[in-house]
């Protein structure tokens, strides 16, 4: 009986170790080949050991000016997170405190919008932005990403606001605050954990977006994921290796993010209405 338990325990740990390997393998392999020349990265037969070089990164960041794309991504993500949270907090608070049926129906509509396949909006975006002359601008991309972000931001922030008792608003209002003052001085300060968690997911949505970013920006305005689109079709060796280096460059900030904010990401995922 005891040996049976022992065997199942071994099987369990082997299974988990296998998952650990599978989860990380594509990322580790990408990291490994990004540090090699093309002939060593993709060779037949495969090379387990090869000289390490940072040439791919140098070509990408220096020669191809990938720092511009990095800068664009930074501007887009910071703007999207800031605007999403500001606008979303106001709306999330309103939805958590309003009891009328209008709020309920708007929440359902927002939920439906969350499921929207983003490419269906592109033909109209092209026409709208062409007419306004703001196609291929960071401004247009930020607005679009904020709007796409809103449904889930509202849902998530609303669920955090629901945990804050309405008596707190009332107490503040009794003490002479207006509704807006109560929100700004009393409610938001106790909401910070919820705001940080929601902000993380807004960040991920903006940072990871490829479809809208690649369609709405080009040239110098491209974000990092849009810029490595070349690697998808790359036939030339140099372009392919730069794509690998770019893919790793995009992933490193995400690894840092998991290291720092693991707890918040997990709590956000289990909040319910999440996953952008």
């Amino acid at each position, binding site marked *: 009986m005891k040996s049976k338990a022992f065997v199942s325990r071994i099987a369990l740990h082997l299974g988990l170790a296998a998952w650990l390997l599978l989860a990380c393998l594509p990322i580790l392999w990408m990291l490994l080949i990004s540090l090699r020349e093309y002939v060593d990265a993709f060779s037949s037969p495969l090379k387990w050991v090869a000289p390490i070089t940072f040439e791919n990164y140098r070509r990408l960041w220096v020669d191809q000016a990938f720092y511009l794309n990095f800068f664009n991504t930074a501007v887009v993500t910071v703007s999207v997170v800031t605007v999403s949270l500001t606008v979303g907090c106001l709306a999330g608070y309103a939805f958590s405190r*309003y009891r009328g049926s209008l709020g309920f129906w708007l929440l359902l509509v927002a939920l439906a*919008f969350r*499921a929207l396949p983003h490419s*269906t909006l592109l033909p109209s975006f092209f026409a709208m932005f062409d007419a306004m002359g703001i196609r291929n601008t960071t401004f247009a991309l930020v607005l679009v990403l904020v709007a796409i972000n809103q449904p889930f931001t509202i849902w998530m922030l609303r669920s955090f606001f629901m945990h804050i008792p309405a008596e707190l608003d009332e107490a503040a209002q009794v003490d002479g605050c207006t509704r807006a003052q109560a929100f700004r001085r009393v409610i938001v300060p106790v909401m910070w954990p919820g705001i940080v968690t929601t902000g993380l997911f807004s960040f991920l949505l903006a940072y990871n977006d490829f479809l809208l970013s690649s369609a709405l920006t080009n040239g110098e305005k491209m974000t990092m994921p849009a810029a490595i689109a070349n690697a998808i079709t790359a036939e030339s060796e140099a372009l392919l290796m730069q794509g690998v280096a770019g893919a790793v460059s995009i992933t490193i900030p*995400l690894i840092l993010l998991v290291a720092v904010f693991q707890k918040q990401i997990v709590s956000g995922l289990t909040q319910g209405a999440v996953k952008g």
Partner: protein
Amino acid sequence: MKRKSFLQFSAPSMLLMLALLAFPMVMTLWLSVRNCTPQMALVTVQQTGPFGAASVTTQRAKVDASGRALQDCKFVGLSYYRNILGLNKTPADREAAKAASASDDTAAATGDGHNEFIGALRFTLLYTLVTTPFILAGGLAMALAMNHVTRRLKGLYVAASLLPFIITPVVGALAIKWLFRDDGLVPHLLQQVGIQVFWMAQAWSAQLLIILYGIWHVMPFAFIVFYAGLQGVPQDSLEAARLDGASRWQQLRYVTLPHLAPLLVFVTLIHLMDAYRVFEPVLVLTRGAFTTSVQYLTYSVLLEENNAFKASAAAVLTLIGIGVLLIPLLRRTWREQRGTH
């Protein structure tokens, strides 16, 4: 909260969604029944060269005062819908198909009666049906296994599992692609045991890769949600079941699973919506050569065929699909939220 302050607080958010989500959806409907072509004019140009002057007549697009091309727009009804559904061909397409079949057989593959939308929908559904059970079962197995792991290792497993989930989808798909390239790691390892597959050279293996990517990317989400749910399983019910002689399997079947049922439904519904939007792996792993998805169809018609009107028709069909998919989720939310309002 009063209705007036509700409206004031939520106005910025509502206006953004109205302008950039609701309005474009309506506009798509309008675009999909129209077609615009640039107005062309015959221009005769005098060319002077070393061998004397010649006048050449060419076609040029007309522009207005600000340099924008003038367009001829007309109402074309449902013809783009018929086109996408392979019901009939526009005269221009028929000519193109004729020219193509005369000169080149490969182009004829995109020719007559080819139902692009149903083809895309078929793979989207296949992807959904195959990935969902693996994601649910895999996520559940991992969550259950976590109960037997020390606290220290738990952190490691959770962190490692989060990586495939939060990685940029286009990067994740590329990572899988580089792993499965003909001179990559996996084909090399498979060759050691005598299996040779050119993963991206045929439909079945390319589709399998997309499905593998999907499981790799979404299973961690299921795992984390289920793991959180397991912490809330009432321990005294499990204890009582144990005392009554329930086996481990019976404890799982009659105590744990019923407790997790709402989360299973939640993960399934979220995955159904996300699977319907599958895009990046299709673009990266096959470039639409062997398989398409509904999102990919709109994207490629818009950016590769450069036809915003046909793309709008594809978009409207896609939206009808998501509308059907959303019904169970909306009903569930409606029932849940009715109590809180």
